[in-house]
């Protein structure tokens, strides 16, 4: 019995060792930059976020490797080396993602991680990125906890999307600017997990500062994520005396909610602000309600569909050609992470005179201002690790000529208007009445 256990264990581990050696030998030969990219390939977050994000990555990597992108990104690869994107599944929860990221870094020897959709994954893997000393560019998650609580002194972790706070502050600003007198009170329906809870809290606090005489409900709805059946909540919202409904729903939950609410006339009774509504607007097409405020968390997707900036024009044209539909926000956000990567690698290589080390790449990215799809963006917060971009809001309207949903009455809020000043925690900033905002 004794030998059976130990020999079979040894044999199994032996096989694993041999496999690993073979893999690392292969990695040393090829002169590529390996990038691990987690995105939802399975599960409920795949259709609205995961797959468009993956498409965006595949397109931008093709563009980068062939040098197809307009200037200043018209050189091939990251610092001259071809980019190899290892796309893997983000489903399964934070703990599993920690394991997967470790595998990608230690087993597959990736040079950097660019991606991550869920705030849960970002929160779970931030400490690991620092431990493994791997450059990590988080692209979609919005939780402020990453740099304000979990990783106050970041070195390897960056984020190239505004926090969720910015998204909800700009929504409140838009309402204050455009709907004065029309809004009698606010209520909300958000999924009962960190994203939904944070979104509602930020929105409520921002509204309390900007429109103090508008009351907020004491009974916001927090249904379980992925519940898919919102009949009772729709009744409760219809009966509520507040006339503006805030929701950070996304993906299938949002589509189901829109279908059920349309059938019950809720969109005719209430004003709506959908903070990431754009993720389903193209898919639903004409079924998406008109006259709804939708957000994209920055200059992405629908808001820049007609922007003539060269990089954006290239992306719009090639994306529609490759996938037969316009790119929505996750495609942009993931691609922006890769642009940040290209900028940092190229810049570091120029400074170093040779292919840069991770530390040199990080030095180039920290606090950098780099050209993105529409104009420059800056890594302006959290010691130069958190991006600040403008944020845009408008109202949906169906364009018969184009055959797709477009936005009207768009207002662009500059980065300083919707983000706290450097060094101030988002929650404190909101509670303190958003002092120091530059609008």
């Amino acid at each position, binding site marked *: 019995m004794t030998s059976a256990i130990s020999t079979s264990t040894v044999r199994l581990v032996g096989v694993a060792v041999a496999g690993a050696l073979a893999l690392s030998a292969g990695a040393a030969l090829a002169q590529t930059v390996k990038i691990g990219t987690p995105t939802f*390939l*399975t*599960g*409920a977050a*795949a*259709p*609205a976020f*995961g*797959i468009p994000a993956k498409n965006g990555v595949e397109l931008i990597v093709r563009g980068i490797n062939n040098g197809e992108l307009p200037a200043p990104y018209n050189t091939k690869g990251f610092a001259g080396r071809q980019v190899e994107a290892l796309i893997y599944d983000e489903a399964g929860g934070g703990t599993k993602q920690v394991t997967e990221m470790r595998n990608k870094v230690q087993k597959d020897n990736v040079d950097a991680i660019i991606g991550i959709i869920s705030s849960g994954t970002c929160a779970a893997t931030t400490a690991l990125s620092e431990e493994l000393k791997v450059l990590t560019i988080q692209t979609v998650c919005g939780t402020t906890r990453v740099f304000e609580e979990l990783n106050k002194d970041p070195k390897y972790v960056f984020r190239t999307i505004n926090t969720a706070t910015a998204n909800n502050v700009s929504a409140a600003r838009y309402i204050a600017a455009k709907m004065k007198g029309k809004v009698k009170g606010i209520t909300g329906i958000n999924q*009962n997990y960190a994203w939904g809870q944070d979104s509602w809290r930020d929105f409520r606090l921002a509204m309390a500062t900007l429109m103090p005489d508008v009351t907020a409900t004491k*009974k*916001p*709805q*927090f*249904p*379980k994520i*992925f*519940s*898919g*059946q919102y*009949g*009772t*909540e729709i*009744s*409760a919202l*219809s*009966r509520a005396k507040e006339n503006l409904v805030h929701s950070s729903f996304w*993906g*299938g*939950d949002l*589509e*189901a909610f829109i*279908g*059920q609410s349309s*059938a*019950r*006339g*809720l969109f005719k009774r209430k004003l709506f602000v959908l903070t990431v509504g754009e993720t389903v607007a193209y*898919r*639903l097409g004409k*079924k998406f309600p008109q006259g709804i405020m939708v957000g994209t968390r920055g200059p992405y997707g629908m808001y820049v569909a007609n922007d003539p900036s060269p990089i954006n024009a290239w992306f719009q044209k090639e994306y529609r050609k490759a996938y037969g539909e316009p790119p929505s926000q996750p495609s942009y956000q993931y691609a922006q992470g890769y642009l940040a990567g290209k900028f940092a690698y190229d810049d570091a290589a120029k400074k170093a005179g040779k292919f840069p080390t991770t530390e040199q790449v990080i030095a180039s990215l920290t606090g950098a201002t780099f050209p993105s799809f529409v104009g420059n963006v800056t890594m302006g917060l959290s010691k130069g690790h958190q991006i600040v971009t403008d944020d845009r809001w408008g109202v949906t309207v169906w364009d018969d000529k184009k055959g797709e949903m477009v936005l009207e009455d768009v207002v662009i809020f500059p980065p300083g208007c919707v983000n706290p000043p450097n060094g101030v925690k988002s929650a404190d900033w909101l509670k303190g009445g958003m002092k120091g905002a530059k609008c």
Partner: protein
Amino acid sequence: MDFELLLVILVDGLVYSSYLFLVAVGLTVIFGVQKVLNVTHGAFYAFGAYLTAYLIGLWAKGGLPDAGGFFLIFISAAILGVVLGVIIERGLLRFLYDRDEHIAVLATFAAFLVLEDVILLIWGTDPYLAFQPMSLLGSSEIAGLVFDNYSLTMIVLTFVVAFVLWYGLNRTQFGKILLAVIFDREVSMAMGINVTKVFLITFIIGTFLGALGGAYHAPIISVQPGIGVEVIVLAFAVVVIGGMGSIPGALIGAIVVGISRAAAVHLFPEVELFVIYGIMALVLIFRPEGLFAPIKARKI
């Protein structure tokens, strides 16, 4: 509390109860007869939803009348009941009846994992929408609120399904045979009952019901990956509350949870999320066999 609010809670509660019952009844039928907690049930639900949404999409593209959607719902469920039911029962479960009960549960768990990915292979990750039947039926006003008629028909369907099952079990010959098999499989076999056939038919019925749950919800929800996992939890909770294997139990369990949840959403939304687990915990502590558990004989 005003009368209107009570009425709204009742209607909302019944709609949600119907949803729960349709989701849970297939699970309880199979458990009652075969003593297998059929985790594959979640995949049956997902298959039902996908096939229906897909067919309704094709139907609409073909320019055929929207009313056909209802026909497609039942056709999809029936096809899946037979196809998946036979594959899982004949291809997998029948080899496991003689082994420990939990092996069968684990096998259905494995089959569930496989079927989830099969769905992905067939239909991809894009969500399917099939709102046509819901739009077709329009809406009506109750207590000053607009309700969509499609959801209201779910209540009717629930009572129809419950009645047919009750009638089938208590008033037909097959029902009597079934009861004999539930009570003692070996003796029934000795009495000349073809237990193999009974099991297959029950499993097909259970599969049909699981698929019907998904098929009937397809027009309301967005049909997308992952819907099956959620359903398992809800269905299991209802079945535990009502008593595992009991059809009236599933109905009562669904109604108790549905109405309590509706009351919570309207009155105290902050506790809504705990309602189903709270009821489950109470039932488990005071009546762990569920509200309507069938009596068990203890073998010596």
